[in-house]
């Protein structure tokens, strides 16, 4: 839990949102944290996305390193995000195996321009050793980090990035969990998603849009009139 006191929380309930505290949590500096100057539309939008969807909660990597989800993993980066759990025997292995091919297709961009993250849905089962073992099983390369954390924090991220069903009963059934891959460019506020079971070539294409904004769509052939 963040270093917040009950007193501070009660002060929030006194209906005065603390812009400074928010900005500090959001990791945004400068104008947004100064109450006297107006944040720009763009700054407000980025802040809103962070606050609603990208919680800055502590996680552990497959190497046991403690990281903050927003500050360390997502902020100022192009990323892909998906959920799995080690003992999942239906969709997860398919998606993970797909992502192995995706990582290969994206090549040297992974770990330098694009950061891949897989988060466990069952942190109570998947400790650091379990996710490390799972990662090794698939021979994931550097630049692709597997993550676990406190169950409530993992749930916060899952809901934050919209991997939920409208029906609460289905939403609780982890065998039906959302198999999408969320891709995004955090500072540019570009976010999309594609199915984790789509063809790896198209998943890779979709993720690479986040760092190739000047290039035409895949339907455009290189030779005119082709």
């Amino acid at each position, binding site marked *: *839990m*963040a270093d*917040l006191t*009950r007193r501070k*929380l*009660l002060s*929030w*309930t006194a*209906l005065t*949102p603390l812009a400074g505290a928010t900005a500090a*949590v959001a990791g945004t500096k400068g104008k947004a944290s100064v109450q006297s100057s107006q944040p720009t*539309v*763009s700054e407000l*939008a*980025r802040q*809103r*996305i*962070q606050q*609603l969807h990208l*919680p*800055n909660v*502590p996680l552990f990597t497959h190497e046991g390193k403690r990281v903050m989800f927003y500050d360390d993993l997502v902020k100022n980066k192009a990323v892909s995000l998906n959920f799995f759990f080690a003992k999942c025997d239906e969709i997860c292995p398919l998606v993970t195996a797909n992502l192995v091919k995706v990582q290969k297709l994206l*090549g040297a961009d992974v770990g330098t321009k694009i950061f891949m993250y897989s988060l466990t849905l069952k942190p109570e089962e998947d400790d650091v050793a379990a996710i490390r073992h799972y990662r090794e099983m698939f021979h994931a390369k550097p630049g692709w980090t597997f993550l676990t954390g406190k169950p*409530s924090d993992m749930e*916060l991220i899952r*809901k*934050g990035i*919209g991997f*939920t069903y*409208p029906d609460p009963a289905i939403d609780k059934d982890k065998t*039906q969990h*959302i198999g*999408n891959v*969320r891709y995004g460019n955090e500072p540019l506020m*570009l*976010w999309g998603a*594609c*199915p984790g*079971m*789509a*063809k790896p*070539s*198209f998943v*890779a*294409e*979709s993720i*690479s849009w986040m760092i*190739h*904004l*000047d*290039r*035409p*769509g*895949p*339907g*455009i052939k*290189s030779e*005119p*009139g*082709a």
Partner: protein
Amino acid sequence: MYYNVYGEKVSKRRFKEMCDAAKNRRELIAAGLTSRRDLFKMGLLTAGGMLVAKSGLSARAQGQSGGGNNTSPGTQQLCQVGNQAQSPQTKPFIDPLPIMPLTRRVSSLSPAPTLNPNVGAGEVRAAAFQAPQIDSSRFPIVPGTLYEVFQRQFTTRQSSDTILPPQTIWGFDDGSGPRSPGPTYRAFYGRPQIVRNHNALPATTQVNNTGFGMPQVTTHLHNAHNPSEADGNPCDFYPSGKFCDQYYPNVLAGFNSTNTPDGDINESLATLWYHDHRVDFTSQNTYKGLVGFYCLFNNLDTGDDESGFRLPDFPQHDIPLAFADKVYDPTSGQLVFDLFNLDGILGDSFLVNGKIRPFLNVEPRRYRFRMLDTGPSRFYEFFLTGNIGGAGNPTTNSFWLIGTDGNLIPNPIQVQSVRIGPAERVDVIIDFSKFAGKTLYLENRLNQINGQGPVPLDSQLFPQNGTQTECANLGGPGNTDAILPANFNNGQNLILQFRVSGTAVTDNSVDPATNPTFYQLPSTHADPRIVRTFKFDRLNGQWSINGQFMDCGYGNGGRGGESTETFRFAVQQNSVEQWLLTNLTGDWTHPVHIHLEEHQILSRNRSAPTVPADQGRKDVTQLHPNERVQLFFRFRDWLGKYPIHCHNVVHEDHAMMAIWHVVPQGDNILVP
């Protein structure tokens, strides 16, 4: 007046608390303090689950019964309607309805259009123009009608009520300034045209993005019988600084196949629209403003009330209406889009032609309205409501349906209401002559609480169980009826106000009550070459068609490889097919759109269609829960690639789309 998300009146103080609560909630989320256990530990939550603070934190009105944990982060929890703070409530009917001007023509384009894409000049196009290769005298490479438009970012007011700040959105600029919806094309059969469509959106940087939108575009002309290179294929998007010459032949289906040389008059199109179709980002880009109308005329549907069918004259008494529902941040007032929603997005602010709940001064005579649902996910059922605020009950008044998906039906049908889903259009005639001096409203009385579609479905209209929904436990007033009462919730659903002047005027237009005949429906008796099945499903939250997902192939710019376009199936040029669309997604309704050719609905669950909207020519068909719909197609004239997709654009953007192509020799894949 202030309202909560249920449309109930709340005090100004309570509204302020709700806005603050939303802020507080975000801060709690940001701090990772949203679990009940955490809050309980902090002494902020009672054993009964209520927050201890006297006010704030809960965005819902106090004392509200029913489910909904309002400390939930993330996307709107769709079965918990209380989870979304309400947009600032602007005063309705203070802005005149914007009427989009006609797109300005240009006398020439520099450099001149070329048969093959002019890559050196910055053009991005998938292939050479097809039409000039079929007949270069009818379809010259540089036709007589030329347009040049620029897609730009601009700032505008969506209500003149200053509670809502100016909004930075995207639109189309024909030289008269950017606007959204874009300017309206007035096109004619027999007059081919080129639109040089520039992407002049700001290349994305950290400082100019307003929180959503992808500045790469491909503009689809929805419903057009167009060659694929001009269709605006989702995979053919282009970045800022580039352009595409889109060659619109404006020619009837069959011109080069079944009905040479002019095509089948019964395939005439009338109300088309253009919108961005960038794969995975269509919902964001159309929501941000990249939409507009394209009205196509011929020597019967002339736009002149003294010739042809004598429909009301365009554009004075023939008015396109683009409906959209949007959400604004309750604190900043900025337009927001839920980037992380997989199901469908509903707004609580209704715009017509870019303004929130505007008014239109009309004369006491007949008008033609071309009504378009621009989405992203809402279905509408429009009624013509009168006597608001007068003695007695509101009145519901009849009007005339003359077109479905913008295409004239054989004869006008008198209706009490019309229902449209995302991307669908209806053309209607409203006769205001008996309402001189009165005020009327277009009211959306369809009950829809989430992206699933209207719930519960009206079993009178559709033969299915009407009561099951994923959110069946919502209950409460307004959540159980398919059609809400007139003037429900203090008139929250009155979207467009008509102020009818008291002075009688001459009206030369045809009276629909005389039962004029427009076109005949094309025959559907031909034997299909193949019957294909398309199952619309959801697999682990991934929207799919026949268990597969959208795939553009792999681009040429990424890893240095060749483009590997993959097509799911091949339709034979100039052949007849039947397609069976099956809905396996339980309670969801999918408005399914197919490019290139219109279709006719042969059956719904093996019964002939009964509702008027199902009996015309369509390019979007609503696929209701547990339905199987049988469609008839003739694929004519053009070659190339086209999509089939769900036009709930949130589903479309999450892979409920497939690319197929038309080739001289089709394949025999039954379940593509």
